[in-house]
C-alpha cells in the first residue's frame, strides 16, 4: 500500500508540474517559435528544392558508354545518367509480363540521356541495371550542343571543309577554332538582322500603313512614299546579299562524330553552339562551363520549343510587365485611397465601398483575365484601333492581347492591395500634424502633397511590395491578355517609339507552364522548369528586397513623432 501511495503522490506532483509548465506560458513560446520555424523551413525547402533540381542541369556531367542487351539485341550507346531509381518486382512484372527469369525484390533502372535525337531516337531511355553488359567512362567522348535536335554525343573523327577532310594534328583544337569562327559569323548575321533588317522592315511597314492611310483619306499621291520605299528596298537587297554570303560561309564546315555503335554522322558546324569533353575536363574547366551555361540560360533566347536555350525574353517580359504594372497601379490606388480617407465623408457608403474594394482582392485572377480580354483588349483596344489605326485593319494593333493590356489587367488585380495599405498609412498620421499644416495656411491639397503623402509613403511602398509579389507570380489572367509561348521580338527595341506597348511578350510564369506541360520532350524540359521557377522566385525576392530597403529608409525619415 505504501508504495502505491508513493506512486499516486509522484503522479500528482507530476500532474501539478505539468499544469505549472502549461501555466508558465512556456508551451506557448514553443508553439509560436515552432510555427515560425516551420514557415522558414518551408521557404528554404522550396528554394532549396528548386535550386538543387534546376541548377544541377547546367553542370557538365560525365558521359558513359553503355552496352546493354534487351530481347536478345545488343545496343551500344553514349549517354548521361540523369536519374536512378528502384522499382518493386510487382511494378516491373506489370510492365514486362513476358519476362521469364527470376526477378529480385527490387529492380534498379536508369534514365539515360542519349542525345542524338536525329540519328538515334529517342533521346532519353530507361535501362534496367541487369540488362547492362558493360559500362565505362571513355575520356574522349564529346558532347555537342546544337541549335536543333538537342545534344549529340560521340567521338570526334574528322572535320570536313567543303567536303574535303581537313588535315590537322590537333583535331579538337581545330574543331573549337571552327566553332568559334561560325559563332562569329552567326553573331554578324544576327547583328545585321537585328540592327538593319528589322529596322528596314519596320520602316517598310510604316510606309505601307501610311500609304493605306492616304488611300483611306482619298489621297492618291503616294509617289514620295514609293521613292522612299525604293531606297529602303535597295538597302534591304544589299544587306540581304551580305547575309546570303555570310550564310554560305557558315555552311563551309562539318564535323564527323562517331556514335557508340560505330556509325559516323556529319554535323554542320554552323549548327553547333558549343562542344566539350566532360570526362577529361578539370574541375575548374567544368566550373567555368557551368557558370557559362548559367549565364547563357539568363541571356539566350529559347530554342527547340523552349526546351533548350535560355529564358531571356521571358525574364525581360516579366520584369518589364511588373514595372509597368507598378507604374500604373500605384498612382491609381493612392489617389483612390486619398479620396476614401481624406475627402469622402466617412459613412455607411464609404464603408460599403471599402468592403467592396477588399472583396475585389479575393476575385479569382482568371476572372480578371476574362474581364481584361473583354474590356481592355476588345472594347478599349478595338476602339483605339478604330480611331487611330484604321490603316492597319483588319490586322489589329491594340485590339489584340499585348503588354499594355496585361499590365492594366494586373494593375486592376492589385489595386485593392495598394488602396488598403495606403489607407492604413493615412489613418496612422496623427490629426495634430494635419492641423499643424492647415493652421499655417496650407490648403488641404497642399497639406496632402507636402506632409501627408510623404508620411504615408512607407505604407504605399508596403502596398507596392505586396502588389509586385502578387503580380509577378500571376499566370492565369496573362494567358488571356498578352503572354505568348514565343514572342518574335522584345517589347523594347531600337525602333521608335522604343517601348512597344502593343506587342505580345513572354513571361516566366507562363514559360514554366509551357515548358513543363506543353513540351514535346518532358525529360529534357524538366530541369528547365525548376531552373525557371527558381529564377522567378529570385526575381520576386530581388524586387521585394529593393522595395523593402527603400521603405525602411522612408520609415526612418518620416517616423511619427513620439513626443
Amino acid at each position, binding site marked *: 500500500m505504501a508504495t502505491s501511495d508513493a506512486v499516486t503522490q509522484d503522479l500528482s506532483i507530476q500532474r501539478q508540474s505539468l499544469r505549472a509548465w502549461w501555466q508558465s506560458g512556456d508551451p506557448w513560446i514553443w508553439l509560436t517559435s515552432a510555427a515560425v520555424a516551420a514557415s522558414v523551413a518551408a521557404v528554404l525547402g522550396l528554394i532549396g528544392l528548386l535550386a538543387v533540381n534546376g541548377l544541377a542541369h547546367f553542370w557538365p556531367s560525365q558521359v558513359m558508354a553503355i552496352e546493354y542487351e534487351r530481347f536478345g539485341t545488343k545496343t551500344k550507346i553514349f549517354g548521361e545518367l540523369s536519374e536512378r531509381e528502384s522499382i518493386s518486382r510487382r511494378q516491373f512484372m506489370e510492365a514486362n509480363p513476358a519476362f521469364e527469369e527470376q526477378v529480385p525484390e527490387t529492380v534498379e533502372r536508369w534514365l539515360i540521356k542519349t542525345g542524338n535525337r536525329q540519328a538515334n531516337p529517342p533521346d532519353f531511355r530507361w535501362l534496367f541495371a541487369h540488362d547492362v553488359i558493360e559500362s565505362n567512362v571513355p575520356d574522349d567522348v564529346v558532347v555537342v550542343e546544337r541549335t536543333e535536335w538537342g545534344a549529340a554525343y560521340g567521338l570526334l573523327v574528322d572535320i570536313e571543309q567543303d567536303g574535303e577532310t581537313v588535315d590537322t594534328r590537333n583535331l579538337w583544337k581545330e574543331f573549337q577554332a571552327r566553332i568559334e569562327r561560325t559563332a562569329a559569323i552567326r553573331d554578324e548575321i544576327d547583328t545585321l538582322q537585328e540592327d538593319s533588317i528589322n529596322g528596314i522592315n519596320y520602316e517598310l511597314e510604316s510606309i505601307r500603313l501610311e500609304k493605306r492611310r492616304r488611300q483611306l483619306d482619298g489621297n492618291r499621291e503616294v509617289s514620295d512614299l514609293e521613292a522612299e520605299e525604293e531606297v529602303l528596298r535597295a538597302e534591304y537587297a544589299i544587306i540581304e546579299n551580305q547575309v546570303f554570303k555570310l550564310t554560305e560561309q557558315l555552311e563551309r564546315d562539318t564535323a564527323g562524330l562517331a556514335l557508340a555503335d560505330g556509325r559516323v554522322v556529319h554535323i554542320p558546324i554552323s549548327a553547333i553552339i558549343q562542344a566539350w569533353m566532360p570526362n577529361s575536363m578539370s574541375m575548374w574547366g567544368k566550373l567555368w562551363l557551368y557558370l557559362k551555361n548559367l549565364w547563357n540560360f539568363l541571356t539566350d533566347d529559347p530554342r527547340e520549343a523552349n526546351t533548350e536555350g535560355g529564358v531571356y525574353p521571358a525574364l525581360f517580359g516579366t520584369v518589364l510587365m511588373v514595372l509597368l504594372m507598378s507604374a500604373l497601379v500605384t498612382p491609381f490606388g493612392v489617389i483612390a485611397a486619398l479620396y476614401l480617407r481624406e475627402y469622402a*465623408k466617412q459613412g455607411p457608403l464609404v464603408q460599403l465601398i471599402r468592403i467592396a474594394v477588399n472583396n475585389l482582392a479575393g476575385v479569382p485572377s482568371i476572372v480578371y483575365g476574362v474581364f481584361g480580354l473583354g474590356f481592355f483588349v476588345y472594347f478599349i483596344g478595338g476602339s483605339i484601333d478604330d480611331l487611330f489605326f484604321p490603316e492597319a485593319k483588319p490586322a489589329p494593333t491594340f485590339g489584340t492581347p499585348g503588354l499594355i493590356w496585361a499590365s492594366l489587367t494586373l494593375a486592376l488585380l492589385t489595386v485593392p492591395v495598394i488602396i488598403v495599405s495606403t489607407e492604413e498609412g493615412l489613418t496612422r498620421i496623427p490629426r495634430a500634424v494635419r*492641423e*499643424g499644416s492647415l*493652421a*499655417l495656411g*496650407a*490648403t488641404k491639397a497642399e497639406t496632402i502633397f*507636402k506632409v501627408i503623402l510623404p508620411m504615408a509613403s512607407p505604407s504605399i511602398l508596403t502596398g507596392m511590395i505586396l502588389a509586385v509579389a502578387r503580380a509577378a507570380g500571376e499566370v492565369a489572367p496573362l494567358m488571356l491578355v498578352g503572354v505568348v509561348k514565343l514572342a518574335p521580338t522584345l517589347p523594347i527595341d531600337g525602333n521608335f517609339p522604343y517601348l512597344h506597348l502593343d506587342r505580345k511578350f513572354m513571361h516566366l510564369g507562363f514559360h514554366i507552364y509551357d515548358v513543363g506541360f506543353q513540351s514535346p520532350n518532358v525529360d529534357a524540359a524538366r530541369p528547365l522548369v525548376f531552373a525557371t521557377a527558381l529564377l522567378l522566385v529570385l526575381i520576386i525576392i530581388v524586387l521585394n528586397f529593393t522595395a523593402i530597403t527603400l521603405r525602411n529608409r522612408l520609415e526612418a525619415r518620416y517616423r511619427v*513623432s513620439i513626443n
Partner: protein
Amino acid sequence: MIDERAEVAYESSPMPDVPTPTSSIEEITSPSAWRDEDICLTVSDLCLHYGDNEALTNISMQVARQRVTALIGPSGCGKSTLLRCFNRMNDLIDDVRITGKIELNGMEIHDTAVDIAQLRRRVGMVFQRPNPFPKSIYENVAYGLRLQGSMPKSELDDRVEWALKNAALWEEVSDRLNESALDMSGGQQQRLVIARAIAIQPDVLLLDEPASALDPISTLKIEELVHQLKQDYTILIVTHNMQQAARVSDYTGFLYLGKLVEYDTTNIIFTNPTEKQTEDYITGRYG
C-alpha cells in the same frame, strides 16, 4: 519688425490693413475703455453646435490688439472650441454649426469672400502637443513661407533665422538646422512650432494650452516667450493653469459650460471678480 510685416505680399488678400494701437504697451485699460483701433477681434453672439450639443452659447467679447488674453475654465467648458473658432479650425469637424460673428480687424471671418487659407496665415495657432512635421528644423520653419510662393534662398534663410531667434530657439539649433525636428526635446519642439507660426508673421497667435505637455523649465521658457511676443502679436492663450494665466495675460475670460461668465483685466478677474462662479473657480472651489 512692423516694417517687415508690411512687406509681406498680402495684396491678394481681402484683409484690411492693421491699424496701430493708440494705447502704449504698459497700459492695461478696462475693455469698456477701448477705442476701435485697440480692438483686434470682435466676437458677437457666437453659438456653436456639435450636432445637437450646444458647445458655445452667445459668446460676445473683444480681444485687445497686442495684448495677451487668457481663456480659463474647467475642462469641457468650451475654451479650446472658442479658440479654434478664430482660425476656423472647427470647419474641419463634421456636424459643426456656427452662428454669430467674429470680426478680425473689422472683417467678418465667416464671410464667403474670405479665403480660409489666408485667414489662417493671419491667425496662427500653436497646439497643446508639439506637432512638428517629420522634416528638418529648417524645413519646419520654412514650411509656411514656402506655401506663400517661392522666394530667394537668402531671404528664406533670413526669415527662418528671424523666426527661430524670436522663438528663443536660435542659440540651441543654429548649428543643426538640417537635423530632423523629431530629434528635439518636447520643449524645443514646442518653441519650434511657435517659430513656425510666427515665421509667416500673423496678426494673431492662438496658443492652445501650449505648455501643458512640457516640464516646468520648458514651461517657463514658453511663458517668457509669450511676454516677448506680445509686443508684435495679439495673443490668445487657453490654459487650465491659473497661475500661468495670472503670470502671462493682460486680460482673462472665464468660461463655464459654454458661456463667457466674466471677462476683464487679469488683475480684476484674479483679485476682485464680479461673478460668484468666477470667484469659486479662481479660489479652487471647483474645476
